[in-house]
């Protein structure tokens, strides 16, 4: 070990790392897709990946770094999506003398009011940017509020009980949105004012760039957060909450903070999604798409590893998009029995979860086990005790 050239081995380490290899493969795949199938498909992949990266990273903060069994991710996503579907448009409608009350969400009124607001936004860049930032801020506040609410049972309940309770309440919120029309139109979708109309000619490209930048910022923030003293406290609570309590850490407060930060970020992801889609349909926020799929992404990438999560999201998004693109050419034989190849997407996600659990329990990029002391001090202590040969 002592004889090896240090810089050389480090270089080798960088190239042997899973994340570097997979990242390069993903870039290559995206390039091939761009050259063969066109740029717009790559942009679709990127926007999907960006939205789900934000949501899955927030899930990873709670599950991977804090050890909370969060099976209600959809709850916070719904909070962000519904708030952005319901509030900012109403504020602008109120300021401009348009109908803003209960009737705003009525489908006969909504399809006239929202385009009027969008036209208004299109006329001024500062207004559009302000609208966008206001929407995200609102979503984050709503998400943090939901996170605080879910932290109440999270203090009392053990893992499985908590997971099931959160799952059930996510479903409940979806049904509230589906049934209570004044919120986001109930069974009919409510339109969301479009702050990107300012750049009408290149709207799609700009949305993708904004989304990717936001996902990157969330990644940087969480990477920094989980490496900070606060992040190490989270890991301590995750690994042994009793020991953390003995060390004087307030476990309730730490779990609450983690849930509030995670839920606020997930809500921003939901807000980004409805602004990009231009509509907000309550029934679209199912636990399958917004809880289970982020779980699958996270498990493939590696629970507790932020880089792994980003790669997991990217890989599965590419795979899903390719299945949808090639479903009639590659899987067209299914159509002879009338079977829609669309369902292969479900099979793919299910198989990924099963295979990861069986053969790759730590994911593509396993989270590093970090020692509390620097490695050098551990080695020195071990040598003093005479364990030098076995450690490091």
């Amino acid at each position, binding site marked *: 070990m002592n004889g090896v050239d240090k810089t050389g081995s480090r270089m080798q380490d960088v190239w042997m790392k899973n994340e570097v290899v997979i990242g390069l493969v993903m870039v290559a795949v995206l390039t091939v897709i761009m050259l063969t199938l066109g740029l717009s498909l790559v942009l679709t992949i990127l926007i999907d990946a960006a939205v789900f990266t934000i949501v899955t990273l927030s899930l990873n903060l709670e599950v991977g770094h804090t050890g909370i069994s969060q099976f209600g991710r959809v709850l916070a996503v719904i909070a962000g999506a519904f708030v952005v579907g319901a509030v900012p448009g109403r504020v602008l409608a109120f300021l401009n003398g348009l109908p803003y009350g209960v009737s705003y969400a009525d489908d006969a009124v909504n399809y006239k009011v929202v385009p009027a607001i969008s036209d208004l936004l299109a006329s001024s860049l500062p207004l559009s940017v302000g609208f966008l930032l206001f929407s995200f801020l609102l979503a984050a506040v709503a998400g943090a509020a939901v996170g605080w609410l879910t932290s109440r049972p999270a203090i009392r309940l053990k893992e499985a009980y908590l997971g099931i309770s959160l799952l*059930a309440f996510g479903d409940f919120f979806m049904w509230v949105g589906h049934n209570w029309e004044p919120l986001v139109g109930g069974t009919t979708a409510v339109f969301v004012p479009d702050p990107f109309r300012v750049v009408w000619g290149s709207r799609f490209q700009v949305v993708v760039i904004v989304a990717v930048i936001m996902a990157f910022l969330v990644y940087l923030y969480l990477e920094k957060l989980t490496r900070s003293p606060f992040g190490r406290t989270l890991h301590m609570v995750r690994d042994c909450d009793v020991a953390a309590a003995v060390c004087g850490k307030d476990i309730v407060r730490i779990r609450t903070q983690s849930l509030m930060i995670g839920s606020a970020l997930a809500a921003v992801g939901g807000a980004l999604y409805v602004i990009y889609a231009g509509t907000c349909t309550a029934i679209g926020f199912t636990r399958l798409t917004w809880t289970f799929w982020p779980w699958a992404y996270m498990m493939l990438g590696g629970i507790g590893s932020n880089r792994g999560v980003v790669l997991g999201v990217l890989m599965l998004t590419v795979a899903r998009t390719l299945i949808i693109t090639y479903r009639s050419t590659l899987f067209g034989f299914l159509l002879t029995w009338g079977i829609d190849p669309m*369902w292969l997407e479900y099979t793919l996600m*299910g198989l990924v*979860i099963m295979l990861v659990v*069986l053969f790759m*329990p730590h994911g593509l990029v396993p989270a590093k086990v970090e020692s509390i002391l620097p490695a050098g001090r551990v080695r020195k202590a071990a040598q003093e005790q005479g364990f030098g040969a076995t450690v490091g």
Partner: protein
Amino acid sequence: MPAWLASGLAYASGLSLTAGGITLLYITTRTFNFAHASMATWGFYVVYTGTVLYGGTPYRWLPLSFLFGALLGVICYLVLNRHLLARKANTITLMMSTLGYDLVLLAFIQMYCDYLTYSLKLFPRRVTMSVYDIELFGTSGASVILPLTAVAVLSLLHLFITRTKFGTAMRATIENSLLAGASGINSDWVYLASWVIGGGMAALGGAFMAMAMTGTPVLGMTTIPFMFAGAILGGLHSLYGGILGGFVVGLAEYAGVYFLAAEVGSWVLGYRMAIPLLIMAVTLMAFPQGLAGAWATMVGRAAGLRKRGVEA
């Protein structure tokens, strides 16, 4: 019998079977079985296919439905659960593995529905099973036959685990798997048996519930929170608690919606799922270990008091 009670009884019987199955799997294998959702839906589609293609009452097909569910359970055990248990995986990993299995089963259900629609010109995506029902004692057959079948199945289960040698081995493994192993019980067979029974109960439960509600490919997917609610209400420690919890949750939903709709207005129908969730939330807030946990605490306290009384 009023209509809400008739369909409520059929639904509650189905929910008690599924909740019982979830509880059984949890106490034997520590697995929260998400695949219960699609196993239940498959149970319904077995009955539907049999009834539509070969005629007769839906009840003829219940045994086949149980067997199919048991088969799905066995596959889940042999492919996934067995290896994870051997590896001593944690609860969350066990839970996620069944979620993956559930998604695959759901995909197959959807493909099967596509096949039925295309090749046999059926309409399997919105099924009202009650049209195939028979009339019995002036009320729907489902409200009589299904609760009775549920009671029969659960009695058989009770006899099986209390009166047979294998049942005793099962209980021993549940109580203390290490000691049971030391005394020569093969826990592998016990786990397999609980997947057979749990999967079969899930399929039966799904077939039961379809007699009271619209049968769709997402029948299990939409009702799984209530199955869990029933199991949690029962406390997840006792099989009988789970069965009772499922029944209470199911009947409370139908009764609650009926009386609330009469009092407040029909708009509450959209929020019917709030009732079982509220029951679950209140139970968990008051007794974080469920009703069986509360019962055990109460019995424990009473026993403690008695003991102290004796000493005094």
